């Protein structure tokens, strides 16, 4: 089973690659909408990427109110 920190690191790496943002410019407690410059449709893309990568199913209503990478990682970690 992956640790929470490893999950968080993989999310940051995956988001950076998908949205072509330098990995070193993304931080765990940062608002990912602002950091990645993404809208709701791109958020769905990110959700799909994460579900495919971690092989989990994350209902999108669980993302309501989730704005930073650490909280997102916790949601995924809870389903690994």
């Amino acid at each position: 089973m992956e640790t929470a920190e490893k999950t968080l690191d993989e999310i940051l790496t995956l988001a950076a690659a998908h949205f072509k943002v330098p990995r070193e410019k993304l931080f765990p407690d940062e608002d990912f909408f602002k950091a990645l410059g993404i809208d709701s449709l791109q958020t769905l893309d990110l959700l799909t990427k994460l579900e495919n990568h971690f092989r989990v199913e994350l209902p999108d209503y669980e993302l309501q109110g989730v704005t930073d990478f650490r909280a997102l990682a916790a949601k995924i970690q809870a389903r690994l």
Partner: protein
Amino acid sequence: MKQFEGQTLSWELKDGVIELALHREPLNEISSLTLEELEKFVAVLGGLSHEAHALILYSSLKSGFCAGADLRELYQWIQEYGQSEVAKHAREYLERIHAVMNVLDMSPLTTIAAVHGVTFGGGFELALTCDLIIADKMARFCFPELRLGLIPGYGGIPRLKRDLGNAVVRDLLLTGRSFNSTKAQQIGLVSQVVSEGEALRAARATAMQMAKFDRTTAAAAKQFIKQLPLEELKREIDIFCDLISRPAVQAGLKKFVESTDAQPYLP
């Protein structure tokens, strides 16, 4: 006529396969104009069917297959017709779009939806008219209508129930959640999941396979196994029209149309 270039969609018959491409920015929202162009297409589909064995529906937009009904147009109708008249207008519109969807559903051709990205609401319902859905890894499926105080109105619930059963419909409809291609394949909705950007290629390969079969036999097999859930389709229109004139719907649409929220598409 073997090809058509419209403002919202285009189609072409080539080598026995009709390919219909949706291309209305930003995400193929189904508007009155889309419906008019779909009506033109189904009006000639019967004639084209004598020269074809397969029909592929896809989106040429990178953003996805289709986000569903044009909610801004729907909101304008409510403003224009008022809550007392909007149900009558909605019924006329839904009967037209159901007529189109029913022709696609019952076409003697083998039909394939090649989807990627957002496949929501009316877009999902359009894909559900097809015999096969081929999805790339980034496709997502959703019925977000309850969020607006409505139910899906383009025949999606009866078709999904026909194809997969009531439990799947309840999950999608009552939670409003979206799910990805992998889940869609697990429950039997999607026949093939392919790499990002490969859905159309896979659909063409599948259509090529179908060219090997006798058309009369393939059409008879489809007619045997796939029927229209007509009573439920009619009931769906009734329920939609009962719901649309309520203030809650106007409020839901207004919220969506005026939203600056970063997550308007998240259920």
